[in-house]
């Protein structure tokens, strides 16, 4: 019994940064902007949170610092992809590389090393219970906003049929800019959960592909909030089971490809149809 609880707790912990990043990605992509830069956002968010928490001694301030870093990064990406109409895959990849280079540089300036922050004491870390509660709250908030508020309607129209939005007198580009910035802040908070919640510092390359995993969860969840949450929890469970039953009957490697294999199955259309927002990646 305690074993089961252990596995579930572990799965929730593993899923929580993914949930933040997937919701961030959802806001961007539903407005019609491809967000391949989740990985980079988690990197800057994780680093900013660790620095913020170290400076102020408070986990909440760390989380706020991450959101702020996400806003700055998201703004740059929004300028590139929405205003200047750069290819979104290329710009997003560029943001990922920028994050990978910027963090070692900043930590060199701040701490004389190449991408690791000093460790936080136990009481200044974000408890994982809070991280999970916050993640679930954000899912509920995003789902409600997209479905039932005017802003959500604009975001959906910007992603599906920008011309209609424009004819209603609302600029789809402005909606996209704001949506990308808000989404980036959420994704960066996912990095914060990783660095000051699940670990005690930001350490080099610690995001380790979780941004791409969140993007996968978003697509697996067909760009909808609750199903994307389900996908994150499923990935968390796969990893949680792997942590517990490693060296058992099922090879580790098989467990690790499971999330990606499942997503391919979904994209191939075996589990209903996955339909991306119509105007996703289109420059108009």
């Amino acid at each position, binding site marked *: 019994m305690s074993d089961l609880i252990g596995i579930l707790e572990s799965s929730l912990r593993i899923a929580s940064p993914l949930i933040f990043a997937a919701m961030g990605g959802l806001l961007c992509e539903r407005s019609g902007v491809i967000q391949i830069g989740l990985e980079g956002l988690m990197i800057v968010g994780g680093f900013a949170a660790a620095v913020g928490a170290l400076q102020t001694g408070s986990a909440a301030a760390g989380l706020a610092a991450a959101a702020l870093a996400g806003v700055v990064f998201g703004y740059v990406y929004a300028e590139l992809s929405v205003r200047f109409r750069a290819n979104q895959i290329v710009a997003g990849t560029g943001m990922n590389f920028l994050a990978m280079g910027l963090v070692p540089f900043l930590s060199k300036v701040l701490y004389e*090393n*190449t991408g690791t922050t000093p460790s936080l004491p136990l009481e200044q870390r974000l408890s994982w219970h809070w991280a999970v509660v916050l993640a679930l709250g954000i899912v509920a908030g995003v789902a409600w906003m997209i479905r039932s508020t005017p802003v959500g309607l604009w975001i959906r129209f910007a992603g599906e049929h920008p011309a209609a939005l424009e004819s209603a007198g609302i600029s789809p580009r402005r909606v996209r800019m704001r949506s990308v910035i808000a989404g980036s802040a959420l994704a960066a908070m996912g990095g914060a959960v990783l660095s000051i919640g699940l670990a005690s510092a930001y350490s*080099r390359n610690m995001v380790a592909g979780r941004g791409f995993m969140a993007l996968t969860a978003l697509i697996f969840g067909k760009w909808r909030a609750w199903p994307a949450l389900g996908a994150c929890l499923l990935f968390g469970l796969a990893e949680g089971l792997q942590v517990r039953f490693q*060296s058992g009957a099922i090879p580790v490697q098989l467990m690790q490809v499971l999330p990606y294999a499942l997503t391919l199955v979904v994209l191939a259309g075996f589990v209903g149809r996955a339909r991306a927002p119509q105007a996703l990646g289109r420059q108009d």
Partner: protein
Amino acid sequence: MNKMSSPRWGLLAVCAIFGTLSQAMAAPIRVGLVLDKGGKDDKSFNAAAFHGAQDAQQKLGIQLKVVEATDDNAFEAMHRALAQKQFDLVIGVGISQGDAVKKVAAAFPDRRFALVDAEVSAPNVRSLLFQEHEGSFLMGVAAAMASRSGKVGFIGGMEIPLIKRFEMGYQAGVRHVNPKIEVLSSYVGVTSEAWNNPPKGKELALSQYGRGVDVIFAAAGASNLGLFDAAEEKQKFAIGSDSNQNWIKPGRVLTSMLKRVDVAVFNAIELAAQGRFEGGIIRHGLGDQGVDAAVDANNDKILTREIRTRLESVKKQILAGKIQVPDYYQQRK
């Protein structure tokens, strides 16, 4: 064309003269250190190599350049670049640099290379190897004696033969003390990202502690930090590796398996500085304290005198050949 080239030749000649002059005058040797993905702040394996090189810089006045790889494909380019830039000694740190050093050393036979953890047989390469299984055996002895629950754990970084060698030595050490103690083992992953994943290291540790383990030995690079966080939260014991990690969580880190990469790197640099560098395969073990158990003020209270005396006697018995420590490398052959 000819008119253009004559001033250039002049410039080149001036450069060449200055080059030879500066070399003849200063002559501190130039050392390039290529670190693995963990980076110099992993507080473990790479940190040890970096400290050795830094020590050499201070004591021997060498010129040191440290580079870190961000992915496994960068190693060859880095070694090649350092060799081309007239570095006298290029040091590769980590098993994944073996192929890169092999290729580059063959292409630059007049440059000298040192390589930690991997074996390359070439006259200009000094391979620095460690008897990890012996050190891990000591950790097994310490863990088994400190455990009250009858269960101890092992967490490896990337699942490769090198880390299996740690695991096998550790298990043998545990059984040497008490064959009834159960050993759980887990690995962070199967790619080199496993060295940099503290959150996953922590999950594995929490899972093992949750199943009744009370001492865990980790050989997982920067992922070790996750184990220490978990040990602090759950008030259990952890054992570090490569560098002395006792200071990271004083009172929770029972001991660390020292792997004196720092000493080996320092020695290689010193030999090169004295012009006595030789290629070959150098094995560091218990005998020359290349591997050892870390004892300092941070674990003074938790590593009991009983454990320490036992460790000393086990060391003597291994060196005398009375205890045979199983070696994963040998068993595979």
